[in-house]
């Protein structure tokens, strides 16, 4: 359906929204029968270079329980200067400034092309951005050196008026007092004992003592509220001293004996960082950036002991309930994460080590606050250095892409309720008329996203509440408004408002319409997010069973078939890719923890729960392109039959870019044909996938791993494990002619999966 694809794409480009269904079922009962919930992926700060913000504040509905923003769906009486809220039907008077509006002189927010619009808030002090570095010193010498250099480099990338601070930790935790003159001082804390926020603030001298002599006068803050503290100073003042301070950092001096891990007090270090910011700069944009080279081994939040002979927990250990420290450590970091989110700050984790570092226990710090999680092998790698640099990338206006302190408020028309959200957010517990059951982070119509950027995407799930046989509401359209308040990196406060509407339809009479308006890509990602969310608390096999069940029900409802005849089964175009997505999702590292450590699984899930639709789909079903002499590069099936001797394959899994040379190509390369002038086209062929890979590598955050391999190479396993194994050692000779490369696996292939699916869908027993 070409027109619906265009419609979907246009809406995504303009509003940053993709719905699973673009024509909505008009009754609750019918909606549940459609299997895939009515839900959307929302990218609140989608980059809109063509949308300059307006320099005034939004006009709100006057009903206290509504407060929706004036939008193109509202009815307007230009003569009486009144507008009717499309959500609650309240009639509102326009403010005096709108006295001159008319049909031919509309304010931007009433024009349909401004379904998404951004307002700049003029009033209120603008606070600078804050960056607090929390640095592990139990690193190898060259790792520490590389990290120090990256931090020094970052001082050149930060805006001059941003505040910056430094906490280092190993066995002890050191909070560095930043001053421009004299000897550098620091406060040292033991890494074994956790402290309350108040204790930390007292010990750092952040609380003003009572002044018994001056009882008549109330205690005045001596400084402007946004002045720096001794521990957080503006970059333009402190950069030289901080550069020196960083340059002089040494490895943790406590000796580590043979067979032991260094004592690392990550839990206390983070706790102090959170307490420091809580006491000095609550409710303003700040990033706590944790750089760590190994697991926490001491104090609250420790993930493993210091004996090397006891390894850090694996999935097997967790399943057998053999992970001693996990529950307590997770609880510690969850407490910190919730406090940080309440303060409006975010926590990033940069973990570079060959072994696990405790990302499983610490993941809530990044996931609840919207902070980043970066996982690498060493700080002395291009993967870390460039990923870290990319945090400070500027947009087309020369501003940082990062934004802070966002609150997302969702309003719906009466026939809908909000079930919940899944993404890098916390609930603000705002109950209201449009809040329903819990799904994901539910029970609220408002969420807080403390750290976000133009790709941050939330999955928001709705419920149709209209009773069966209630006539379709007048006007035939339902509406949803997304209002995001946030702190822009230029320190301005802004409000982004997106208001969308979609038609209601009666499922019985208009099933074809509803089918045609199904967005299988969005549906796949939204279902996947639900599955991954479940996987955090349920057993793996249960999640897979649930996912399979939903897929079978969807096929039963929307497939065309004759009962009990699997060969007759067909899906229309708008559903044709969906089973494939589900097949690959079942095999993905988000739902299959086999072959990944708990830290790796946490890392992959972290990125899956926040990326936009295109990148999320790449993660579910990697992209595979083929390069050959037979024509221009083309997408090919992610299947073993696509692996051929005379082709080069480029696979993008989001986390890895793999270039694979087929057997013949590899031999030609080895023979050096690319260096001979008469075979220049071969040189071009070899170069083409490298150029395309470079385009991806240049832009993606986090930087993917880069694998350049060939037939028979050990690293070819990255490709072989992802492709559908249509040809295995089991069925090799069944196809007759040998095409493609057999995969040595017992995994089910897509063909077998589809056969089973069709059998179950057409069976009346299900």
């Amino acid at each position, binding site marked *: 359906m070409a027109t619906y694809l265009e419609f979907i794409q246009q809406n995504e480009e303009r509003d940053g929204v993709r719905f699973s269904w673009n024509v909505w079922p008009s009754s609750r009962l019918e909606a549940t029968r459609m299997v895939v919930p009515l839900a959307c992926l929302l990218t609140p700060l989608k980059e809109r270079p063509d949308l300059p913000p307006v320099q005034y504040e939004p006009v709100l509905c006057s009903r206290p329980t509504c407060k929706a923003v004036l939008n193109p769906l509202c009815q307007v009486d230009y003569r009486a200067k009144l507008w009717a809220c499309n959500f609650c039907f309240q009639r509102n008077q326009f403010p005096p400034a709108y006295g001159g509006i008319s049909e031919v002189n509309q304010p931007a927010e009433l024009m349909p092309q401004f379904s998404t619009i951004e307002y700049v808030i003029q009033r209120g002090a603008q606070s600078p951005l804050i960056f607090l570095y929390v640095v592990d010193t139990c690193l190898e010498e060259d790792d520490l050196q590389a990290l120090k250099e990256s931090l020094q480099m970052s001082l050149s990338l930060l805006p001059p008026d941003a505040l910056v601070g430094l906490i280092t930790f190993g066995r002890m935790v050191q909070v560095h007092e930043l001053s421009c003159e004299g000897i550098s001082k620091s406060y040292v804390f033991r890494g074994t004992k956790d402290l309350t926020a108040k204790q930390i603030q007292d010990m750092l001298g952040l609380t003003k003592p009572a002044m018994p002599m001056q009882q008549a006068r109330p205690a005045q803050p001596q400084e402007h509220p946004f002045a720096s503290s001794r521990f957080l100073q503006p970059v333009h003042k402190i950069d*030289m001293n901080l550069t020196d301070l960083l340059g002089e950092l040494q490895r943790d001096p406590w000796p580590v004996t043979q067979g032991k891990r260094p004592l690392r007090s990550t839990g206390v270090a983070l706790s102090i960082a959170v307490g420091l910011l809580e006491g000095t700069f609550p409710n303003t944009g700040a990033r706590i950036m944790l750089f760590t080279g190994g697991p926490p081994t001491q104090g609250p939040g420790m993930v493993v002991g210091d004996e090397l002979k006891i390894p850090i927990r694996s999935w097997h250990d967790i399943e057998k309930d053999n992970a001693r420290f996990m529950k307590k450590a997770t609880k510690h970091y969850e407490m910190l994460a919730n406090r940080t989110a309440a303060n409006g700050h975010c926590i990033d984790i940069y973990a570079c080590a060959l072994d696990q570092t405790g990302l499983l226990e610490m993941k809530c710090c990044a996931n609840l606050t919207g902070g980043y999680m970066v996982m690498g092998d060493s700080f002395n*790698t291009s993967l870390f250095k460039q990923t870290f640099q990319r945090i400070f990338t500027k947009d087309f206006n020369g501003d940082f892409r990062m934004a802070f302190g966002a609150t997302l408020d969702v309003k719906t028309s009466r026939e809908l309720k909000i079930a919940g959200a899944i993404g890098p957010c916390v609930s603000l517990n705002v109950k209201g008329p449009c809040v329903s059951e819990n799904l994901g982070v539910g029970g609220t119509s408002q969420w807080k996203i403390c750290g976000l950027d133009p790709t941050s995407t939330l999955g928001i799930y709705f419920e149709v509440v209209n009773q069966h046989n209630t006539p379709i509401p007048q006007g035939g359209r339902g509406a949803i408004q997304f209002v995001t308040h946030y702190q822009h990196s230029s320190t301005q406060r802004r409000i982004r408002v997106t208001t969308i509407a979609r038609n209601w339809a009666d499922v019985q009479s208009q099933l074809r319409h509803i089918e045609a308006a199904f967005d299988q890509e969005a549906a796949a990602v939204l279902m996947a997010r639900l599955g991954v969310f479940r996987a955090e608390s349920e057993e793996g096999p249960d999640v897979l069973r649930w996912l399979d069940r939903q897929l079978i029900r969807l096929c039963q409802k929307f497939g065309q078939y004759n009962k009990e005849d699997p060969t007759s089964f067909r899906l229309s175009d708008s559903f044709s890719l969906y089973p494939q997505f589900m097949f690959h999702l079942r095999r993905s590292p988000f739902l299959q923890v086999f072959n990944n450590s708990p830290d790796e699984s946490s890392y992959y899930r972290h990125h899956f729960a926040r990326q936009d639709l295109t990148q999320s789909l790449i993660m579910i079903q990697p992209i595979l392109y083929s390069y050959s002499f037979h024509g221009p590069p083309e997408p090919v099936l992610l299947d073993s039959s696509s692996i051929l001797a005379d082709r080069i394959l480029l696979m993008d899994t989001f986390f890895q870019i793999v270039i694979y040379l087929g057997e013949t190509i590899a031999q030609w390369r080895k023979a050096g044909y690319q260096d001979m002038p008469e075979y220049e086209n071969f040189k071009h062929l070899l170069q083409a996938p490298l150029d395309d890979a470079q385009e991806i590598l240049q832009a993606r955050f986090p930087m993917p791993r*880069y*694998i350049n391999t060939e037939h028979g190479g050990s690293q070819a396993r990255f490709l072989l494990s992802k492709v559908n194994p249509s040809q295995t050692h089991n069925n090799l000779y069944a196809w007759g002619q040998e095409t493609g490369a057999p995969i040595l696996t017992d995994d089910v292939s897509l063909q077998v999966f589809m056969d089973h699916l069709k059998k179950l869908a057409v069976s009346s027993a299900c």
Partner: protein
Amino acid sequence: MAELYVKPGNKERGWNDPPQFSYGLQTQAGGPRRSLLTKRVAAPQDGSPRVPASETSPGPPPMGPPPPSSKAPRSPPVGSGPASGVEPTSFPVESEAVMEDVLRPLEQALEDCRGHTRQVCDDISRRLALLQEQWAGGKLSIPVKKRMALLVQELSSHRWDAADDIHRSLMVDHVTEVSQWMVGVKRLIAEKRSLFSEEAANEEKSAATAEKNHTIPGFQQAS
């Protein structure tokens, strides 16, 4: 001005470490990029894998060389960034940047800023000395020296943003060589910039007062 190159990643520390892009290449990538490779192929509904219409090699190698270029050469598919491996250091025609040409303007700029706090100036001075030491000792690579010469030129022409950008590109691409003293240069640019805008503001003010004093004779100024 900024160099555009790609270096391989650190294969010793990470065997699948991605290549490293220079600052110039990374800043080029501003704004939303078109997602080139996002198409998928639907699996055939009848279940058999599609056998592609290309040749398959029937047996062990060799099977002959690739098709020679006498066939119409197929150009690379997408207009993408410069090919990897562009050498940044081959400028045989240009003479190497001269140390004095770089240090003298920096020292001069420092002198101009002496009005500011002593501590800051001492710090900057210390770092300039370090720069001189490293340069004279041959510890700085040619690209660093070249870009420093450019930076100084921009600074002398009062193009603060350009100078700042060069300092950033040096910090990103050559942090190991420059980190000890570059922050001093950065501060110097900032100090010169603020000094310059102060002077410009003062000039404007004095011009405005001069104008104000030009009253029409006999005309009473309303108070």
